[in-house]
C-alpha cells in the first residue's frame, strides 16, 4: 500500500523525460552555435593583449621546473590561464613564425619563407580584422620581416624599429613611431616598448583594444639591463651531456652571433629572460590597475625555441623539439573555468589568429589554416589536433637544408631536402630525440602511416 503511494506515476516520468528531451533539443544547439567570443554576454568586446618574445623556448620558465631562471610573472599568468605545454611553431625562424602569428597561415601560404623573403602587403592580419570589428589596435615592437616596413592595414599605432636590419638593439634603440624616427626615451628596449604599451592601454581603456607587443628579447646578443647582469653567475646550468663550451664556436654557428662559451651565452639569455618577465609583470599590473582584468585576454607566446647544445646544436631552425616548441599561455577570465591548467593538446602559432578572432566574436576567414583554441580553453577534454606539418625553407647562409616533418602526439618523422637521411622518433619513449628509428623494425612499422600523414599535410589536407 505504502509502496503504491510512493510509486511515481508513469505519466509524470514520461512528461519529465519529454521535458528533458525538449530542453536538450532546444538549448543544446543554442550552446553549440553560440558565439564563442565574449561579445555574446557583454556589449563590450574583450581587450586583447598579445605578447610575443623572441627565441624563448618552451621550458625556460620556473613553473616548468627550469633550475635557474626566475619567471614569477609568467608563472602567475600560467596560474591564471591555460598553459599549452605542447605549443609549436610551424617554421622555427623569426620572420616566418611572426607572419604566421599575424595571418594564421603557414609560411608556404603567407610567403615569408625565411629571413630573406619580404612580407606581402596583401596578407590579411588578425589586427586588420579586429580593427574592422571596432577594435583600437597597436603594433608595438619588433616587426623584423625582410624588406621595407609594411603597409599594415587596420593599425592605429605602429611603433617599431629598423636598426640592425630590424633586429633592433638592446640599448638606445631608435624607434619608428607611427612613421616618425624617434629616439629611445629609456635605454633598455624591453622597458621602452613596455612603456609605450602601458601608455596605449591607459589611453584606450574605455574602448576595446588589441595590443600586439612584440619584444626584441630574448634574441641574441642576450643583453640584460645592468641591474640584472650577473644574476646567474656561477649557477650550475645543467646543460645537455652532448654539449660543450665551444659548440658555439662551430663555424656554422658563428652566424648566430654566439662567439663566447656556451654557458656564458646561456646565462646572459636567462638573465635577459628574467628582465623580460619583469616587464611582462608591468603589463599585467597595468591591466589590474586599470580595472580591465575581467575583460582582457592576455596571450604570451615565443616565436620559436632555441638549442642550448642539444643535438650539439645552437640556434633554432631544425625540427627537433627544443627548436619548434614554444611557451604559450592564454589568460581569458571570462572563458577559462579552470585556471592554472596545463593543456597537453598540440597548439600551433597559426592557431593564434583564429583563436583571438573567435574570442572577439569575429568570423574566422576560411583562408586561415590554423584552428581556434577556444574549445580547448573552455574544455580540457577536447582532443586537439592529431598531427601537423613542420616546414623550414633554406635561409642563406645558415647551412640547414629544406625540412618537412610531421609531428603527432607521440611521433615525429622528418624529411630533409638534401642527402641527410630522414629521421623518425618516438617522442613518448625518447623525448630528447636521440634514437632515430629509421631502419629498425619499429621504424618500418611506423613509417608508412607517418609518411602518408606527411604527404596529406603537404597537400593541405587534414591527416
Amino acid at each position, binding site marked *: 500500500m505504502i509502496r503504491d503511494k510512493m510509486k511515481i506515476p508513469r505519466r509524470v516520468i514520461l512528461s519529465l523525460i519529454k521535458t528533458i528531451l525538449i530542453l536538450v533539443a532546444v538549448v543544446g544547439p543554442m550552446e553549440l552555435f553560440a558565439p564563442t567570443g565574449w561579445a555574446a554576454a557583454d556589449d563590450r568586446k574583450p581587450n586583447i593583449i598579445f605578447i610575443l618574445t623572441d627565441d624563448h623556448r618552451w621550458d625556460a620558465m620556473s613553473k616548468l621546473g627550469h633550475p635557474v631562471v626566475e619567471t614569477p610573472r609568467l608563472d602567475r599568468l600560467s596560474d591564471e590561464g591555460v598553459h599549452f605545454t605542447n605549443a609549436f611553431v610551424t617554421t622555427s625562424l623569426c620572420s616566418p613564425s611572426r607572419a604566421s602569428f599575424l595571418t594564421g597561415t603557414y609560411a608556404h601560404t603567407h610567403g615569408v619563407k*625565411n629571413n*630573406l*623573403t619580404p612580407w606581402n602587403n596583401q596578407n590579411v592580419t588578425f589586427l586588420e580584422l579586429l580593427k574592422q570589428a571596432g577594435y583600437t589596435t597597436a603594433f608595438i615592437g619588433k616587426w623584423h620581416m625582410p624588406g621595407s616596413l609594411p603597409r599594415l592595414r587596420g593599425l592605429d599605432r605602429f611603433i617599431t624599429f629598423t636598426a*640592425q*636590419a630590424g*633586429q633592433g638593439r638592446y640599448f638606445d634603440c631608435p624607434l619608428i613611431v607611427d612613421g616618425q624616427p624617434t629616439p629611445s626615451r629609456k635605454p633598455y628596449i624591453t622597458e621602452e616598448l613596455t612603456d609605450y604599451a602601458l601608455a596605449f592601454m591607459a589611453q584606450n581603456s574605455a574602448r576595446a583594444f588589441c595590443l600586439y607587443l612584440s619584444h626584441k628579447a630574448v634574441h641574441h*646578443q642576450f643583453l640584460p639591463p645592468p641591474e640584472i647582469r650577473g644574476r646567474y653567475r656561477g649557477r650550475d646550468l645543467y646543460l645537455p*651531456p*652532448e654539449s*660543450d*663550451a*665551444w*659548440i658555439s*664556436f662551430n*663555424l*656554422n654557428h*658563428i*652566424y648566430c*652571433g654566439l*662567439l663566447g662559451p656556451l654557458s656564458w651565452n646561456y646565462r646572459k639569455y636567462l638573465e635577459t629572460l628574467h628582465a623580460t618577465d619583469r616587464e611582462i609583470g608591468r603589463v599585467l599590473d597595468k591591466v589590474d590597475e586599470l580595472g580591465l582584468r575581467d575583460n582582457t585576454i592576455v596571450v604570451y607566446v615565443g616565436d620559436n625555441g632555441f638549442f642550448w647544445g642539444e643535438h*650539439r646544436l645552437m640556434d633554432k631552425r631544425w625540427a627537433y623539439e627544443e627548436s619548434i616548441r614554444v611557451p604559450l599561455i592564454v589568460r581569458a577570465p571570462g572563458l577559462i573555468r579552470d585556471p592554472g591548467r596545463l593543456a597537453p593538446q598540440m597548439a600551433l602559432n597559426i592557431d593564434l589568429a583564429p583563436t583571438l578572432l573567435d574570442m572577439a566574436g569575429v568570423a574566422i576567414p576560411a583562408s586561415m589554416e590554423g584552428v581556434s583554441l577556444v574549445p580547448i580553453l573552455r574544455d580540457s577534454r577536447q582532443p586537439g589536433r592529431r598531427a601537423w606539418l613542420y616546414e623550414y625553407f*633554406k635561409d*642563406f*647562409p645558415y*647551412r*640547414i*637544408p629544406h625540412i618537412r616533418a610531421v609531428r603527432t602526439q607521440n611521433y615525429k618523422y622528418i624529411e630533409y631536402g*638534401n*642527402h*641527410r637521411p630522414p629521421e623518425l622518433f618516438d617522442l613518448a619513449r625518447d623525448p630528447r630525440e636521440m634514437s632515430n628509428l629509421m631502419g629498425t623494425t619499429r621504424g618500418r612499422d611506423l613509417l608508412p602511416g607517418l609518411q602518408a600523414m606527411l604527404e596529406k599535410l603537404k597537400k593541405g589536407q587534414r591527416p
Partner: protein
Amino acid sequence: MKTSYQPGSQSFWMRFAFPAGLMLLIWLIQRFVYTYFWQLGFPALQEAVAWVCGLGERIFMVLAPLLAYSLAYFRGARGWERLTAGFVPFLASLLFELYKAAGVFSPGETAYYALGSPFLVFAFLVLAMSGVAEIICRIRNLRRGGQLRVWTLLPLSAILSGLAALFLMMIWGGGVHWFYIYQSGYLALFDF
C-alpha cells in the same frame, strides 16, 4: 752555427711538404677528436677536449703560420711555400665547410658562402699571423748573419689587413653590420 735563410736549400718535401703536412695532421687530429670524443661517454674529459680541440682548433688555425714559418723558413722555403704551409689548416677547414655547404646550397651560393665573415676573418687573421711570422723569421735570420730588411711593406700590410678585417667583420657592431652587407650582396646576386 745555425745558417741563415738560403732559398731552396732543402728539397721541396722538406721545406714545404713536411711543414704543410704537419699542419694538416695537427688540424685533422683536433677536428677528429672534437667531432667524435663526446660520443665515447667521458663527460669529465669532454670539457677539456672541447677547450683543447674545439677552441684549440680555431686558435691553431690562426697561429699555424708561426709554427709553419719556423719549420719552413730556414729549410729554404720560398715566400709562397711558407705562406701556403701556414694556410693549410684554414684551407682544410674551409674545404670541409664548403663540402657540407654544397649539400644545401647551389654551386654559386656555395662559392659565395666562402666569402662569409667567419671564413674571411680567419683568412685575414692567418694572413696577419703570416706577416708576424715572417718578421720573426727575418729577425732570427738577421741574428744569424743574414743580409735583409726586416720591416717591409708586405708583412706589415698583411698584419694591418688582418686587424682591419677583424674590426670590420667582428668588432664593428658585433659583426652584425658586416653580416648585413654580406646579406645584401647575396640578395643582389641570387634568386632566393
